């Protein structure tokens, strides 16, 4: 019988309740501090008891995140967090599982696990802190570093094309693709809430400044002087508008995006209305990265690019088990031990 005390709701947790007793050891000015703060700030709103939350990370600066959350946490090996998290979620679907990776951890050494997690669609929230550099190994180019990047291992510039993480995730059949950045706390909080609410693997790429090895890589998207021209904040059901004072918009000419000037006679009614459930259009938005249309560069999109409601791996797995048990019954261990064909020696 429940007591009255037990029936009362537990007092609401605060951001502080989610901070572990470990000293945070990122470099001063690292974008990771902001992300940790936003996560600790929004978690109380999710209403999930701390003991039901598990953080799984791989290796890299970002992966240390796990030690700083007062939840269950497993800091594992390079690139493998997605596979470990899959096992955790498969075994106990009740847990709220969060993953933290960097761009090397997620897209390079863990690239195979990344794409397979996307298609399998476990209900896991996957944050990738993208700083376009290897930090913990002291400054080599990463799979998201731009072509020509001069870094420790590429003194004459990288010759590789980078991944566009949103395109990669969509190509791997992700059910939730979003982007935010460390220097926009409110936006990040909103995106994290969306990720938490989404049933399925929520891929959240977070642009994160590395002040030591790649300072300012994303300043074009975060600093006042350039932010409005270089970035676009997308929202489901809202037109695609950006620029100084919202003076520009994007419309679609067939499947080709076109930038129009709203101060120059273009009508806001003709603009592309973001539909995050439209995969074709999500692919076009994701391509606002290094694809120029008619020689024009497009602003970098932030927000939820794509979301799709589909069955999660763990629920499909459990449903199959439940249906089979309902249909066939659970065999006794003795029946399993004997199998179908036996003989007896008297």
């Amino acid at each position, binding site marked *: 019988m429940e007591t009255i005390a037990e029936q009362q709701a537990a007092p609401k947790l605060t951001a502080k309740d989610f901070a572990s007793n470990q000293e945070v050891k990122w470099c001063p000015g690292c974008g990771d501090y902001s992300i940790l703060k936003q996560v600790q700030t929004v978690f109380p709103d999710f209403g999930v008891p701390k*003991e039901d939350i598990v953080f799984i990370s791989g290796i890299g600066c970002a992966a240390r995140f796990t030690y700083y959350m007062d939840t*269950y946490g497993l800091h594992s090996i390079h690139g493998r967090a997605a596979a470990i998290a*899959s*096992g955790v979620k498969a*075994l106990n679907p009740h847990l709220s599982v969060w993953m933290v990776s960097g761009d090397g951890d997620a897209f390079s050494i863990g690239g195979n696990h990344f794409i397979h997690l996307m298609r399998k669609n476990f209900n896991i929230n996957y944050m990738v802190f993208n700083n376009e550099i290897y930090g913990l190994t002291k400054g080599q180019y990463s799979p998201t570093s731009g072509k020509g990047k001069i870094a420790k291992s590429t003194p004459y510039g990288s010759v590789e094309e980078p991944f566009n993480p949103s395109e990669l995730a969509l190509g791997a059949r992700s059910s939730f693709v979003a982007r935010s950045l460390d220097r926009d706390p409110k936006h990040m909080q909103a995106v994290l809430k969306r990720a938490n609410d989404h049933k399925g693997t929520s891929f959240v790429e977070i642009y994160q400044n590395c002040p030591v090895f790649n300072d300012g890589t994303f300043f074009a998207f975060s600093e006042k002087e350039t932010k409005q021209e270089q970035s676009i904040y997308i929202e489901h059901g809202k037109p695609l508008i950006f620029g100084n004072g919202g003076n520009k918009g994007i419309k679609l000419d067939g499947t080709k995006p076109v930038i129009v000037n709203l101060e120059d006679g273009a009508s806001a009614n003709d603009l592309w209305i973001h539909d995050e459930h439209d995969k074709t259009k999500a692919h076009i938005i994701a391509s606002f990265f290094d694809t120029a249309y008619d020689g024009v560069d497009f602003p970098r999109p932030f927000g939820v690019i794509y979301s799709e409601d589909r069955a999660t791996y763990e629920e499909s797995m459990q449903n199959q088990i439940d249906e089979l048990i309902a249909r066939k019954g659970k065999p006794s261990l003795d029946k399993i031990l004997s199998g179908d064909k036996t003989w*007896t020696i008297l």
Partner: protein
Amino acid sequence: MESIIENKQGHATLIDADSVVIRFSGDSGDGMQLTGTQFTDTAAFLGNDLSTFPEFPAEIRAPIGTTAGVSGFQVHFGSKEIFTPGDEYDVLVAMNSAALKVDLARLKKGGIVIVNTAGFDKKNLSLAGYADGANPLEDGTLTNYIVHKIDITKFTKECLVGSGLGMKEIERSKNMFVLGLLFWMFDESMDHTISFINEKFAKKPDIAEANIKTLKAGWNFGDHTEIFTTRYHVAPAQLPKGTYRNISGNQATAIGLVAASELSGLPLFLGSYPITPASDVLHELSKYKTSGVKTFQAEDEIAAICAALGASYAGGLGVTTTSGPGMALKTEAIGLATILEIPLIIIDIQRGGPSTGLPTKTEQSDLMQAMYGRHGEGPLPVIAASTPANCFDTILEAARIAVEHMTPVICLTDGYIANGTEPWKFPSKDQLKPIKVTFATEPNGPNGTYLPYKRDEKLSRPWAKPGTPGLMHRIGGLEKQNETGNVSYDAKNHEVMTKLRAEKIQKIADYIPLAKPDSGKETGKLVVLGWGSTNGAIKTAVREAIAEGYDVAHVHLHHINPFPKNLGELLSGYDNILIPEMNCGQLLQLIRAKYLFPAVGFSKVQGLPFTTIELKNKILEILKSN
């Protein structure tokens, strides 16, 4: 095949035999595995003891008619105890030229060979690599054998005229003709196979009918044609009373895991990636969804073990199955599981290596990898199964060690016992010991804190699974401070933790059985020390030598790390130690390094198990020179 002649009715003389080895050999598409399995099941039902050895090529459909495509199934059955599939066969069934070419060498002199003459036409002879114009059926190759040349293909076709089946399906039935003939030859009933066919083709009655008709035609061919002058009867074996089933090592492994889950109360999670010869465990376990088993075919070997590790972390019985090359890929994650000190069962079904090596052939290839295949100091328990049915006990032991000592456990079997079968007097559930699992539910440190690396008398740490209120904690691959588990780079602490982890594994020796001879005395001139699948051949050879008056014993290891506590003392009671292995001497090195005994190795690395005679000759050689 010793015999006493008796006169019974019918044209053929019925001879009692105490054991017989039959080799069914044909092209990969000839259905030899099915034929062998059906024969085996029937022999088992009739109470024979037996041991089987399926042998097939790595290619799924190698070029038809070539030696690369030969698929063989060997069954050794008898009225006495049988421990091996037999060194040589009494009867060889060769469905084509290639099969005869590959398998004739191991037919006993004077043995029976049944050939399908349709497989010896010009084309087949050429495909098998016989020189132009050469035909082993005519050139004296078979002089020393009793030869039965039968056009099995033609008889099958004639028997199925008007069946409505296509030529391809008709040809495919020819293995049933052989099976029927062999049932007649060995005085065995067709009932089991008839009901198998009816069940298997319940939805295709025309195919069922065709197969049964061909099976009976084979039987009648033996009975009526008077080609065969002798039949053999193998009486039931004097096996211990009880109920038996036939089981392969991979089946026993799968069932062992289901049992371990039930006995421990832990939900079972298998993370696996297909690899020969381990895939059958994944296939088999996937059928046990009604027992709540979760099987996860991962994107690669690494993901397979990582998902299993995640499942263990979440409070389940995490298991991964693989073979040598997959084991290598899992190495980093095994290191993580070692430092996390988390229960995890890692099953390596060994095959010939290195690299892709001999995927379908057996080898005790990975003992050193299991023992030392890690970065850093990371000793782990290593246990090995000795027979197909013993895989079951080995898995239960692995699960017990994993959860009671909080550690990954490496479990070794190999292709020989994984695919081989034997009768198993299976236990009932209440004969099985429960596996004790204790999850932490309360803080164990000062001021209500939880210390994930505070150890008990076994030196094992508590297991607090996510979802447990008040015990939130972080663990990981970084070195951890003793007791708190917090990240620590302290020099002295690393040494303390390294030694604690090793001591914990060593302490398992207090909880495992002592070593003792399986055959022979506790002291003497020679001990044959084995591990894993060499058990049957060593046991047979040693028992034969003892029966002939030689002073020899057999000790078989199931626990390889740690060794049983008395192993050094036991071995010191013998003048000579012989260690036969299907590798170049891996246990040999471990024994020499640990005990400094001048043990002698005996190595076979041919993708094939030892024969009894090879071992016996080696035993006698040592005894006679000492």
